[in-house]
């Protein structure tokens, strides 16, 4: 099966591009920050320098691993789904589910290795840049030499590979377990449980904020991580929530949107599992970006207003947070674009069927647009809730206010990016898909 894996990676490099890109970016981020561990572990590094490097490496390393896992999981789930036909063919030819699992897991391991290897160069440079940043701000002694060694490489390869293999395993298990043709209805319970667990943990993180001293430096960590976990929980639960909501809304939607509203509402209700892949990055993007940017804003204002000079520490934290938000934005955008592109182009046959049933190209685009709008609203709403859940406790504890002074501009910008990406990708892909004549679209299976 490994030869099959290598063959399919070689013959269809395009399909693995999204996975490769997320593995590459993930590995760059992880190794860049992990190289700080190496630098800190070098002999002759003073305790202060060592501590500041270790803390930021740890914080961003945590974020990074989570993101890498979700990014790779999202791209892999999509690519396995796209290959349902091929997998079915293999099973018909006599491949056992275990063999197919080995093939897909093997492929993603190869892709992850390639991504990590490519990432070494940029990560070495990134590590140096990061160290210079720390030196400039005086947090790290100027004489310390950058190092790139066991910790960076180990965590880079380890996390990327583990995330890829784990994600591939989950994705393919889903694809092979159901007998071909059978409708995958259940497996809701595990999902619901995981989602609830994430929500509980997130709520715990957010509430812990109240228990911490208001001047504690690390105060930000609790609401920030809490908001992330809440986002993840919402993302996992969103499809079924959306399904229930749409059940109530399908009548008014059909009344307002005509045939488009009717089709859109029904599609969304019965495609829960696929929607998770789209809602996940959107909610995480909105939740994390909102929480981090506002919490950082509040923190900066607090430092200024408390009469203290901005210490190098604070400045560093600010830079670090902005870097983290930047990473999240890039990652979530890749995930969002990838899942939307794949999910939409995968529906070529369905669009063809709609057209054969009498839908004009405009009506098909209308359905896609409406679905995208509903998805965007859901994603942005839940993401915002998760973000606010992190912001308010932090603001209350750090300052005496409940609502931060920062205006809604940042939030609006985040919403705008998410909306443009979602609508743009969905409609753009659907438009391209519609160029194929309807009869061909329904006959070509792949």
């Amino acid at each position: 099966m490994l030869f099959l894996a290598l063959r399919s990676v070689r013959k269809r490099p395009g399909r693995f591009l999204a996975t490769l890109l997320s593995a590459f970016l993930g590995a760059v981020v992880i190794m860049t920050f992990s190289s700080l561990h190496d630098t800190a572990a070098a002999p002759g590094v003073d305790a202060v320098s060592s501590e500041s490097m270790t803390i930021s490496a740890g914080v961003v390393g945590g974020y990074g691993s989570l993101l890498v896992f979700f990014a790779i999981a999202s791209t892999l789930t999509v690519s396995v789904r796209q290959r349902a036909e091929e997998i079915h063919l293999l099973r018909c030819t006599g491949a056992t589910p275990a063999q197919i699992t080995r093939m897909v897991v093997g492929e993603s391991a190869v892709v992850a290795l390639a991504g990590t290897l490519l990432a070494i160069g940029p990560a070495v440079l990134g590590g140096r840049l990061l160290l210079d940043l720390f030196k400039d701000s005086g947090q790290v002694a100027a004489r310390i030499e950058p190092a790139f060694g066991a910790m960076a490489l180990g965590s880079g390869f380890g996390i990327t590979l583990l995330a890829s293999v784990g994600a591939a395993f989950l994705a393919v298990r889903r694809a092979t377990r159901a007998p071909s043709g059978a409708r995958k209805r259940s497996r809701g319970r595990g999902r619901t449980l995981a989602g609830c667990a994430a929500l509980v943990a997130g709520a715990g993180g957010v509430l812990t904020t109240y228990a911490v001293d208001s001047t504690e430096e690390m105060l930000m960590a609790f609401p920030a991580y809490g908001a992330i976990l809440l986002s993840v929980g919402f993302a996992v639960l969103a499809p079924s929530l959306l399904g229930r909501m749409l059940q109530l809304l399908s009548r008014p939607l059909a009344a307002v949107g005509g045939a488009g509203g009717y089709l859109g509402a029904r599609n969304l209700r019965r495609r829960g599992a696929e929607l998770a892949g789209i809602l996940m990055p959107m909610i995480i993007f909105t939740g994390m970006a909102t929480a981090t940017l506002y919490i950082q804003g509040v923190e900066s204002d607090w430092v200024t207003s408390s009469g203290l000079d901005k210490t190098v520490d604070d400045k560093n934290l600010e830079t670090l947070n902005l870097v983290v938000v930047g990473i999240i934005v890039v990652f979530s955008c890749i995930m969002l674009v990838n899942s939307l592109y794949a999910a939409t182009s995968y529906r070529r046959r369905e669009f063809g069927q709609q057209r054969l049933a009498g839908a004009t190209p405009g009506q098909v685009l209308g359905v896609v647009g409406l679905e995208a709008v509903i998805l965007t609203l859901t994603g942005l709403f839940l993401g915002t809730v998760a973000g606010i859940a992190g912001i308010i406790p932090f603001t209350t504890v750090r300052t005496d206010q409940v609502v931060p002074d920062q205006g809604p501009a940042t939030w609006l910008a985040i919403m705008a990016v998410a909306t443009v990406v979602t609508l743009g990708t969905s409609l753009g892909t659907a438009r391209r898909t519609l160029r194929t004549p309807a009869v061909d679209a329904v006959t070509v299976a792949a």
Partner: protein
Amino acid sequence: MAMFDRKRQPPSRTAEALRLESVTKVYGTGDGAVTALDGVTLSLPTGSFTAVMGPSGSGKSTLLQCAAGLDRADQGRILVDGEEMGGGSEAALTKFRRQRIGFIFQQYNLLPTLTVEENTSLPLRLAGRRADPERVRAILTQVGLGRRLGHLPDQLSGGQRQRVAIARALVTRPGVVFADEPTGALDTRSARDVLGLLRETVRVHGSTVVLVTHDPVAASYADTVLFLADGRLAGSLPAPTAEAVAERMTHLGDRVAARHVDDSSLMEV
């Protein structure tokens, strides 16, 4: 205003359901050009059940796609119910199709996210017409699915899915129903049911059905069989039996093969 009125009333029936005048379709250009349809002219009366047969590559799929407005002919005129199919935009062609033409495909092409009832009423909704639930249910009962209105296509057998497709094709009261190998994916018994149902829609409801197939047994359900070879009409057979159709098909194959031999010998000379 006139447009509005026409939309309201079901299209008036003319005596001629489908008319093709010198329809030609060429795929590709230059040396690689293949003439799939070579000046086909035919006329089908309303209430007829016609099978179109021919060997692979004879142009029967192209004929169906052009006549049904799924593909554009290069030359010639196509009239459905006396109304000429325009060469307008895809949207205009779609509107023409959904008002006058019904489809049944080998692969059913039902939407997986819609129930039996929803699938059947979809063409009406897409056309902005009111989907009368009574009528939709009546049609589904006629095709024997009155008790499966809430099922999804995945939960039905192939024969049942094809019957949903038939109900969906009939719900708009189209001028012509095109069936492209409707029994190609079915077992013998379901195939017989589906063909019987098609014949019944012609007999009882006066629909016009064009059946494209390569199966002589399926063709024998029609009133007339039209034979197609190399993109041209090659005769017809009224009141066909499976044996007679098979017999004609065999010789059609011979004739086509003979012509190819002629062509190649000509090329060599």
